[in-house]
């Protein structure tokens, strides 16, 4: 889905159109500020020419009063224009961020599989920041253009030749400011990049300090950091050299104008062709124009960056969710849980080899089956097709006789509970994580779910029990504890079909049997699909299905398969080989210590 720069502009344009009155208010405030600000040098000129030079004290007081009025007007509107410019820019940023987030939430799994979190983060953060920077400049630029025009008019009316001499060098300010911004930008990016590389060395050294100390690798790491620090120094100095080339030149140019005014204007005044007040006013106007011209230079560079950012944001927003609600959804029957895969073919990427091909499976309501297979046999894919995380390429997946593509997504996903192999918990309390499916669930059912998942006991030992914050800023749990919370989360949702995808792999084997006992309770009267490696977990199932090469190669009870299938015996043997290994915790003996180790890790 390629977007062009034009799409980027259009995206920002439409957003600004929606905020047009706010922008107009900013422009109006800006124009009022311009009028007041531009009038001041003119008033000073009049005060000198009509007051001081004529000895008319009343006129001086009158003009001083007018200057005071202009001062108050300019002050009031400079605040207003700044406030409204930033308000619209921040609002545009916030609205686009909301849209981006909402869109990402609705995009299908396959899209997210192909994206890196960092990339998407940078769309919603850095790119929107760039757009914000440019939007601020929209009303400011209009006011600045007005200032430049107004000053030009006033000056030309006073003395066209002097105007050319005074302002002649100023367009260069604009050109230089633009080139400055464009030249400096790569070194600013370079500084960021070198800083990031330096941070990476620091982070990995601190994280791997045991290795560094153990192998006396201090010198190696110190040299690596010194290299990074040198690189950072070089790129920073490159930036400094650019600043030293442009910055003084930008300050010099207005001086050229001021010298011209004094040189040419001074003689004009002596000759009587120009009033003294006008000479002073010319000076003030040259100074007044410096900032608006610099900003006009920046905006070109900033707008280019903003357009590139907007293009990237647009690219995300125009990607259509591939998995959506059907136009006329069929409601699910009140109860059930029958699952059927009919001739399913599926591959993760178009054109890639199918992971499942000709896959047929029927699970009657209430049955517990175990899906067994080697790595990459396609068994986890089966779990992901039922809740319609992906759509099949061919064939159909049915829940209670209805094709999952005919069901409303929310209803389907509430009916199918999947515990993933990789546990994802939110930075929130334990209770909120368990009650994720139903935040209004009473505390009793949270505790019940936790008990069934074998999590109640360790939760009770946490500093704040169920109210313990976990995640980035909170308490960190061990892999096994996280999995148990994830299981409790699925149990609380009370789905008619429960899928456990290797959901107890990180749970300490000495604890797993407790969970297994509890899970038997959960599985009663509920269709359950267990994907597992451990024989003890497989034993929970009424029926075992062996998957290999994207289809079912054996189907029966554990005992039947053990007797009949060589492939099944091989898969189990591989799992058993790891069982001794998994026994490690037994040597730590003390059960309290074992729990505290999990808690600490």
């Amino acid at each position, binding site marked *: 889905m390629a977007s062009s720069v034009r799409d980027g502009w259009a995206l920002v344009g439409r957003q600004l159109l929606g905020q047009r009155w706010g922008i107009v208010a900013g422009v109006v405030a800006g124009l009022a500020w311009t009028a007041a600000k531009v009038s001041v040098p003119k008033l*000073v000129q009049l005060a*000198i020419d009509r007051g001081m030079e004529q000895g008319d*004290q009343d006129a*001086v*007081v009158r003009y*001083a*009063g007018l200057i005071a009025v202009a*001062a108050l007007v*300019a002050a009031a509107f*400079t*605040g207003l224009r700044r406030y409204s410019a*930033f308000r619209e820019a921040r609002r545009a940023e916030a609205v686009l*961020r*909301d849209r981006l*987030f*909402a869109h990402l*939430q609705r995009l299908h*799994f396959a899209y*997210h599989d192909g994206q890196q979190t960092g990339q998407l983060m940078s769309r919603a*953060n850095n790119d929107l920041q760039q757009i914000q920077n440019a939007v601020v400049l929209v009303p400011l630029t209009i006011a600045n253009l007005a200032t430049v025009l107004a000053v030009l008019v006033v000056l030309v009316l006073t003395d066209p030749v002097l105007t050319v001499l005074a302002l002649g060098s100023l367009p260069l300010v604009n050109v230089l400011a633009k080139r400055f911004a464009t030249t400096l930008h790569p070194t600013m990016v370079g500084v960021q990049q070198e*800083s990031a590389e330096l*941070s990476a060395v*620091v982070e*990995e050294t*601190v994280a791997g300090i*045991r290795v*560094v100390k*153990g192998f006396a690798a201090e010198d*190696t790491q*110190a040299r690596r950091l010194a290299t990074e*620090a040198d690189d*950072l*120094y070089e790129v*920073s*100095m490159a930036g*400094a050299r650019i*600043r*030293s080339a442009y*910055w*003084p*030149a930008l300050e*010099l140019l207005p*001086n050229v104008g*001021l*010298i011209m005014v004094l*040189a040419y204007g*001074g003689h004009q005044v002596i000759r009587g062709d120009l009033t003294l007040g006008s000479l002073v006013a010319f000076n*003030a106007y040259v100074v007044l124009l410096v900032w608006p011209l610099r900003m006009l230079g920046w905006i070109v560079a900033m707008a280019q960056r903003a357009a590139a950012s907007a293009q990237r944001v647009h690219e995300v927003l125009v990607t259509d969710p591939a998995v959506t609600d059907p136009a006329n959804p069929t409601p699910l029957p009140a109860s059930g849980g029958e699952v059927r895969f009919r001739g399913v073919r599926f591959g993760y990427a178009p054109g890639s080899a199918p992971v499942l091909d000709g896959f047929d499976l029927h699970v009657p309501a209430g049955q517990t089956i175990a899906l067994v297979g080697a790595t990459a046999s396609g068994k986890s894919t089966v779990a992901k097709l039922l809740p319609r995380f992906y759509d099949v390429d061919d064939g159909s997946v049915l829940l209670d006789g209805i094709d999952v593509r005919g069901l409303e997504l929310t209803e389907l*996903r509430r009916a199918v509970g*999947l515990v993933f192999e990789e546990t994802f918990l939110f930075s929130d309390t334990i209770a909120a994580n368990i009650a994720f499916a139903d935040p209004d669930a009473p505390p009793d059912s949270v505790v019940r779910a936790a008990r069934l998942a074998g999590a109640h006991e360790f939760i009770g030992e946490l500093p704040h029990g169920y109210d313990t914050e976990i995640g980035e*800023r909170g308490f960190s749990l061990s892999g096994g504890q996280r999995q148990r919370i994830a299981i409790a989360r699925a149990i609380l*949702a009370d789905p008619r079909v429960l899928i456990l995808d290797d959901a107890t792999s990180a749970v300490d*084997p000495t604890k797993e*049997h407790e969970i297994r006992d509890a899970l038997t309770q959960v599985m009663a009267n509920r269709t359950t699909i267990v994907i597992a490696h451990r024989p003890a977990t497989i034993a929970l199932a009424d029926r075992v299905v062996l998957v290999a090469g994207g289809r079912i190669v054996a189907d029966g009870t554990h005992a039947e398969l053990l007797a009949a299938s060589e492939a099944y015996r091989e898969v189990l043997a591989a799992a058993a*080989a*790891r069982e001794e290994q998994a*026994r490690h915790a037994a*040597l*730590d003996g003390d059960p309290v210590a*074992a729990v505290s180790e999990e808690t600490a890790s």
Partner: protein
Amino acid sequence: MMSMGAVDEEDRLDRAQAQWVLRRAAAMLAPYRREVRRAVALVVVSTGAVLAGPYLLKVGIDRGIRPGDEAVLNLAVAAYVVVAVVAYLATRAQVLLVSLAGEGFLRDLRTRVFDHLLRLSMPFYDREKAGVVVSRMTSDVDSLQELVQQGLLQLVSSLLLIVASIVVLAIVSWQLLLWCLLPVPFVVWASIKFQRDSNAAYLTVRDRIGLTLSSLQEGISGVRVIQAYGRESVEIDRFARRNRSLYRAHMRSVFVQAWYLPVIEGAALVCTAIVVWQGGRLVADGTVEVGTVAFFVLALSNLFEPMNQLSQLFNTVQSSGAALKKLFELLDTPVDLVERPDAVALPGRGDLVVEGLGFAYAGGDPVLHDVDLALPEGQKLALVGPTGAGKSTLAKLMARLYDPTEGRVCFAGIDLRDAEVRSLRTRITVVPQEGYLFAGSILDNVRIGRPEATDAEVRAALASLDLLERFEALPEGLASEVHERGSRLSAGERQLVSLARAALADPAVLVLDEATSSLDPGTEVLVERALERLMAGRSVIVIAHRLSTAERADRVGVVADGGLVELGTHAELVARGGRYASLYRTWVGGLASA
């Protein structure tokens, strides 16, 4: 533009702390004394030039134009040209000089802090959170970088400009200056209030940015769970609320700016009105000339604009001060595990002997006490016991990752504290539980402890563990970058690299922390085999989690309650019926119930 610095209330420096930080910073700037002196001199020159412009205009008007003396006018113009050129050159040089000194200072600071971090011993890393340690080198140094690149020059020249403007204006006409100073108390009051409000507003913005980003991150990485539970709308609303509160925080900070800016701009323009009003009166009674009035009108911006700059920069300066203080404090953290000046190299082989060993963290209860133990050359010792009983502390003491608080550890009769650290690490090598990889190739990772090792030596080390083929089979062989997508190594393969490191170091004593998590079945066997080869002919201390490991060791030590409670062969200890025997029974029982 908006200032980005902000400082937490508890980090704000008091006067004594600020002086201490300044003294330390000045000492570190010593190598750049020349640049700093020249920069200061040039700032004085360019400040003079800024004021000279309007002053020359005044001279041109009063001595040249009004009397009609073209020669004086031309002289003023010529002087102006000189001033402009001088200002240009001075600014150019000072930007470079300030950067040379500032960036050089930052580079020195980075390497010094990092070198110090590397010298600090394990107890420091056990005590401090990794995130905090890293932030010293990242966010703290970055806030200084911001000051160096954007603020320092402005800060100095703004201060100088205010002072110089007041002096020059007073010389030209103190009467007019007094009138101009009328709004100054108001501006000063507003600046102080602004500085406080904007600091508070920016801290809020920073917090809310953090919250919004983490909720964004969670929404993206948790999108599969969110969709699985059909919670998209709820999460979208939740995010929108966070995002909205960030918007409000931004608007609060915009409001603070929008309120302060008019004060500065208004004050300058009101002053213009006052100058015209009072200047007109003074011109009328002949106290001053018209040129003076023009001079005041043009120079007034030099009085108020720097005040604006200063109040914007104030927070950046404060947060940089706070950052510097933290960095200097870190540099002052004493290094407790140092090499003695008369340290000796350890011999190639020998027994490892522990005598009356005790250890306690500073101010804490003893973790270990009265441990006596001898590990004869080539023997294998397994340490078992409940977590937290001290078995890994004992292992770390035996490798001098910590220094004991009582007793001593000797290798070949030499106290480890008298040994050269480098030779100690080559004789006694610790292989951590998980294979940790650094950015770089497999080759780089293996020779992390011996960077001078040749490719051939690395190959030999890999071959000695029978791993050479395994890693040469990677897309780019041993040159494969370990962190790049596509050549990411599995946990087992990382462990193999870690073992190869130890093989390259070729130590006499190996300290192993057995992995507790399971590896992929394919590499599990390889790890076992490589470990076997690595241990052959060496003394080994292994922190054992598996019974089979303990069974294979020459002797087993049970560490419990901070002491070595049992020591003997597996068979002896099982027969003795103590702690080890009961652990053994639990294990056998656990296996039977599966």
